[in-house]
């Protein structure tokens, strides 16, 4: 399978500290690829590097063969990468459906002047975008919350909202940063199913997680980071049995 995302010898230094060193891996299409590692291993740093919230110190990142290493985040999004955040970045100042409609930003094009004048093309586009947003909400089981203001909703719902918003853009690659953090068992099981449905719909998922049972259940491939370096990579069953990985980290079940 062609590699969707390729990371080559990626490095990130913060002053004297090497947060990520000599990291190389590739993510094939249509797969759930997970990254695990102890706290501080550099997982969120990696995500921030992939979406250019941090600039790499050296190395390169290729998406669909194109070098995206120094592209600003909004251009990376335009190429088909979307993401959810470890610290929720929901738009609390809007309601649920508006949040997801922002996710459809790249699937629409009315500008400021056209919107001010409310041209017929804008009216049609509003209807279409609303429809797209409703579909995304339905996919994530949030249809009942559409018109509720985001501020004040429970944490579990907000986490789902971030996912609905991220997939509304119909990305090719979805980065999920600890989506199960803070969820109870029922919510985690729902999340499992949701991620599988997302992958089945054609979106490649790159996942950072601590929850081992979730990882083992849904991943096709697992990469272990330790102190910013690649410790091991392979199918979940192999990783589970890898003595180095066990020594560094596993045993949390």
């Amino acid at each position, binding site marked *: 399978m062609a590699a969707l995302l390729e990371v080559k010898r990626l490095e990130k230094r913060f002053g004297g500290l090497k947060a990520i060193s000599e990291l190389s891996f590739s993510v094939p299409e249509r797969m759930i690829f997970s990254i695990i590692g102890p706290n501080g291993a550099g997982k969120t740093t990696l995500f921030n590097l992939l979406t250019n919230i941090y600039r790499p110190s050296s190395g390169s990142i290729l998406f669909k063969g194109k070098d995206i290493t120094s592209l600003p985040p*909004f251009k990376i999004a335009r190429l088909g990468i979307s993401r959810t955040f470890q610290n929720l970045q929901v738009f609390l100042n809007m309601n649920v459906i508006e949040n997801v409609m922002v996710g459809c930003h790249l699937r629409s094009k009315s500008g400021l002047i056209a*919107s001010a004048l409310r041209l017929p093309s804008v009216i049609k586009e509003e209807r279409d975008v609303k429809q797209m947003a409703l579909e995304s909400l339905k996919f994530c089981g949030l249809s009942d919350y559409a018109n509720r203001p985001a501020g004040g909703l429970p944490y579990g719902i907000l986490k789902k909202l971030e996912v609905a*918003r991220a997939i509304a853009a119909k990305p090719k690659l979805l980065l999920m940063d600890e989506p199960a953090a803070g969820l109870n068992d029922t919510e985690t099981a729902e999340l499992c199913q949701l991620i599988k449905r997302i992958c089945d719909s054609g979106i490649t998922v790159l996942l950072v997680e601590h929850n081992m049972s979730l990882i083992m259940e849904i991943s096709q491939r697992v990469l272990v980071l330790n102190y910013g370096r690649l410790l091991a990579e392979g199918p979940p069953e192999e990783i589970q049995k890898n003595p180095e990985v066990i020594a560094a980290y596993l045993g949390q079940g």
Partner: protein
Amino acid sequence: MKRLSGFVLFGAICLILPIVFPDNYYVTVVGLTIFINIILAVSLNLLMGFAGQISLGHAAFFGLGAYSSAILTIRYGINPWLAMLAGSVFVCILSYILSRPILKLKGHYLAMATLGLGIIVHIFFVQADELTGGPDGISGLPPLSILGIVIDSDIKWYLVLCTYMLLSVLFSLNIADSRAGRALSAVHGSEIAAQMMGIDTAKVKSHIFVFSALMASIAGSLFAHQQDFVSPESFSFFFSIELVTMVVLGGLGSTFGAVIGAFILSILPEVLIVFEDFEVLIFGAILMIIMIFLPEGLFVALKNKVLALLSARAKRESA
């Protein structure tokens, strides 16, 4: 259209008032001030309320539009509409150039930079007296005419400013419910998430900064012709602060909030004048009391209360 029913009602009231009260000072004279303030507050609300970018220098663009019209028509004899166009283009270019560095700043630092902008422009109006007439200002603008009709009476100005005011309110309402409006709110909510949704946040902020500056500039040009006089006093830092107060008083982020805030802050001094020496004191007290008890803004608080009452009644009826 259900979406605009409030707007239609509002527009109808504004247009009927001068017919019902043709010689009323409050309608024809104070009304003009109210309309200008509404336009300025609504345009500031696009920047502050929607996009979340605080500006303490909005009066500067109002002033630049006014002075452009005054200087070009009086000193260079240019046609008033051309002068307005030239002033608008100038303000668009200037605001665009300034927007890029200024909007990289956030919070209080952004406030400071816009404050600086406002004060520098004001000082220029005062000091460059060869061009601007200095502290005494300039007067004697040629009259404005539309399709051959000269705008020379209060009632004609009422119609002109009312039209522009209604247009700006309409534009703001349209933007609120659109892709552009959501992009602005997204930038306000979380710039990082907005970028990950493909929004070029720097461009979005810059564009709305220019758009709101343009609206203010056109209002300034009209103001200059209507007053037949421009002086630095009308465009000071105090006025910028007043505009911010109008927007927050009514409810930051709400178009009608800006309208109500502008209305109240324009009317209050007229009403309080009866209290003579106590005017300033009472004005400050009223401002404090409204913000303490209704911190989300007057209009927003009212709207929420009405919505809550309606949904409570709906629950009772369905039970």
